């Protein structure tokens, strides 16, 4: 492991100055991803600035409704927060679907957003990866890519963003508050992560040295009727094979508003705006849920091993929306056996 210096951040401004002043510097949150990557030689910082003692660890209600979540709030604490559990069950469920209890106790909100892909090839310095080394080539494109992207990928990179939490947050229209060397800024979460394009090494729209200080969730009363469904290869401690975050508001038999986020499908937590648009004002029926998912997934391009994600996401979309509207929607005729 490369020798590094360790500094403890005392306030956000000082932390940003420290990191901005050093080309190979990184912020250290819970360390559940970064420390692994340092051991593997994937991340080789010269300086770590520990941000876990910055005063960014509170969850505060916002005046007009909604929550402001400090960047160093631990995943476990956020999942257990009474307001989150009551007003945003989709977020609590997404958090609890991720990792293990031990990891959630360490992992921070900011670190969760900034965690790196679990693509096999990215994590192994003995294999080419454009994300690690621009221009080296993408080993996953024609390699083992069952876990990788179906939406928004480029020939340079087919990685997925691995977070569960971020999928819920993107559906909730979360806004990321960042402190950059030039000052504070707000970035909608939908624009926070980049698609890989030609530069898969550039993962966010934050300026170099930028620090996530908080995530804001606006008020969304109907999010009390929201949920997160994650399909995975084993019952615990597995990244999603595909996941759906959903919230829905009905106006009688019609969909007044709906939010959909898809996980494990793209380089960023995927906001399914086309599906939302297709459902708005339409009868809340199983058939319409299916058509809406198809609308979103029409752009999907499967790789050699991940075509299953298209029907999987479609099924999970339908099932989560049916469950959220149970009792208010006429069930479709039982299909199959």
């Amino acid at each position, binding site marked *: *492991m490369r020798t590094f210096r360790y500094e403890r951040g005392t306030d956000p401004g000082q932390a940003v100055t420290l990191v901005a002043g050093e080309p190979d510097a990184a912020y250290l949150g819970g360390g559940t991803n970064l420390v692994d990557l340092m051991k593997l030689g994937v991340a080789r910082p010269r300086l770590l600035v520990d941000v876990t003692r910055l005063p960014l660890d509170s969850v505060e209600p916002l005046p007009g409704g909604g929550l402001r979540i400090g960047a160093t709030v631990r995943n476990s604490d956020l999942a257990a927060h009474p307001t989150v559990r009551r007003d945003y069950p989709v977020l609590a469920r997404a958090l609890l679907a991720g990792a293990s209890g031990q990891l959630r106790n360490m992992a921070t909100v900011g670190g969760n957003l900034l965690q790196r892909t679990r693509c096999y090839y990215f994590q*192994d310095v003995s294999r080419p990866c454009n994300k690690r080394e621009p221009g080296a080539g993408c*080993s996953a494109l024609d390699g*083992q890519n069952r876990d990788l992207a179906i939406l928004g990928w480029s020939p340079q990179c087919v990685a997925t963003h691995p977070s569960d939490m971020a999928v819920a947050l993107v559906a909730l229209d979360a806004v990321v508050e960042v402190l950059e060397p030039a000052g504070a800024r707000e970035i909608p979460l939908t624009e926070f992560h980049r698609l890989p394009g030609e530069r898969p090494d550039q993962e966010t729209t934050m300026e170099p040295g930028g620090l996530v200080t908080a995530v804001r969730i606006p008020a969304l009363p109907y999010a009390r009727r929201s949920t997160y469904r994650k399909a995975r*290869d*084993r019952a615990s401690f597995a990244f999603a094979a*595909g996941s759906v975050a959903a919230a829905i508001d009905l106006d009688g038999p019609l969909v007044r508003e709906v939010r959909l986020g898809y996980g494990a499908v793209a380089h960023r937590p995927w906001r399914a705006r086309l599906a939302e648009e297709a459902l708005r004002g339409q009868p809340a029926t199983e058939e319409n849920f299916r058509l809406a998912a198809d609308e979103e997934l029409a752009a999907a391009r499967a790789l050699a091993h991940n075509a299953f994600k298209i029907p*999987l996401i479609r099924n999970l979309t339908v099932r989560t929306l049916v469950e959220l509207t149970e009792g208010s929607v006429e069930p479709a005729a039982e299909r*199959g056996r």
Partner: protein
Amino acid sequence: MSAPTAAVGRAQPRLEGREKVTGTARYAVEHPADGLAYAWAVQASVAKARIVRVDDAVALAEPGVLAVLTYANAPRLAPVESRELLLLQQPRVHYRGEIVALVVAESLEAAREGALLVRVDYDTEPHSSVLTERHPSLYKPDKVNPNFPTDTCVGDFDAGYEAAEVRLDQTYRTPAYHNNPMEPHASTAHWWQGRLLVHDSSQGSGDVRDTLGRLFEVPAESVRVTAEHVGGGFGSKGSPRCTPVLAAMAARHVDRPVRLALTRQQIFGPIGYRTPVIQRVRLGADADGRLAAICHDAFSQTSTTTEFAEQTAVLTRALYAAPHRRTTHRLARLDVPTPSWMRAPGECPGSFALESAMDELAVACGIDPIELRIRNDTDRHPEDDLPFSSRNLVACLRDGARRFGWADRDPAPGVRRQGRWLFGTGVAGAAYPARSPVGSARAEARPDGTYQVGINATDIGTGARTALWQVATEALGVPGDRVRISIGDSDLPPAYVAGGSTGTAGWSWAVDKACRSLRRQLQEQYAGSVPPGGLSVFTDTAAEVAALEKVARYAFGAHFAQVRVDVDSGEVRVGRMLGVFATGRVVNPSTARSQLIGGMTMGLSMALHEEGLLDHRFGDWVNRDLATYHVSACADVERIEAYWVAEDDDRVNPLGIKGLGEIGIVGSAAAVANAVHHATGIRFRTLPIQLDKLLQHLPAG
């Protein structure tokens, strides 16, 4: 260890449990040493090549780095049987991930950084790493592991099969599996005045001692290897592996004690793995399911350096009656690391194919799968024509059926739906050889009234130490707190490795004999009191083992599984596993149960989760950690039960003990796969059964 009566058959917590959970039990790289240095392995990034040059200049310039060992400067090793152990001797790469250099440094971190900075230039050659049943290198090995005939033939399979009313001909595929003990392979080595001391994470320190002696050309008496506590092995530490050799080379090179631990990522290959297997099974039966013909053809892989022939089809030689039968094994020699033992080598993958095929035959004949197995039971070994010392397969099936509630089962597949789940149940049979290898032990009575029993057994987490203490205590007839047991040290009386489910049978026999001899001598020569200088006896079981009567010795078992499949996602969850086993006399019900449910869970893991994902372009597996190589976690095991039938077998060995470390994994993957078929109507002949494979067939998909 204060339980005053430690009778055999009584549940007993592990003697060393407290030390383990409080962190004071010392594992291989936790032994302190003055002047300790740390080593880190550098692995080949190509699958087949000549090493042109190793540039170690940058690594050597890294602060703290002491040396870089390569083929050019590493100590020379004398030949041994396993060419895998002739490390850093030649500028050749035989597989991707082969260790091509070793960096030694003042700290672990410096060694690791140094390893990243070593540059190796290769002259690469095309490689072949994908096993197929038509691979051009396929050949017939002279024997299969450890010493079974490669092919067998009884009767006339082709004629019997042709004439059968019901014929089944299917091919089953399993991927590479990686042992993944909790403690990766690790060693601390120390040369001192021409003697070598190694603390090794091994299933048998005696073999490691002998092998190191040969490699370094020093008398075995000058080498001592300890393995007091071992964090699992699952076969991957059953014979000497790379770590003690490399640590000893490095220690000699820098003339300091050296610690070497492989990382999780590094153990995917260099320490062995279970070969992928392709199996064709043909069953011919009458309409009532009575087998007339069985053929089991197995294809697996070996490396270009050392032959390992997985004995995939040997289970089929013993499990069911049929007059016409054939088994074959063929190996492809690939540019891959040498496969090796992994819990129940042979029987584990073999049982997936055979017990899936039996389930398919039951469906084809319209017979209950338990009844089918009972109809094909036999009281003589079907190929060796020997009686069994005991054979309680049917008792296991019947007892399991009763406990599991099998009688109410509707055989129709794919019809039990509750909400979004499809439910199903499955069964499979199991058998595993019950061997009792020769062992030796020393029992010593001390003037203070305590007893010291020593045997070079190894406790790899199984509870062997505790079981042997129970056996010794019973044989000595004294309270347990007066008996101390020493294991895991090559200076102790030699005994077989912790492998092949032989430990509790073979070691107990030796311990029992030594303790009873001591007790008898004390009574006959010292009137039952201990002489002032104490009394020590050393015995072995060579004569007794040689005199064992010729019978077939096996443990048997039956597995039951209940699964549910989500129609939206294809996710498979196992709601219940139940196993019933016939394993002779159970020494410690607590640790026995732990072994059995551990094996069953590992079979669940094989059925649904585990898979080494080969990237043929690179020639190795890309999922090399426990986040991406999935093993079943606690949440995957919802309800699991293991039972054993009463079995009094004095022909298996005098203590009536059969090993049970492996029988739990034999057949359990098939039970899960058979349950998936019952739930969905879809037959999976390739493992693992993952959601993507199910999704396309399910009603919601």
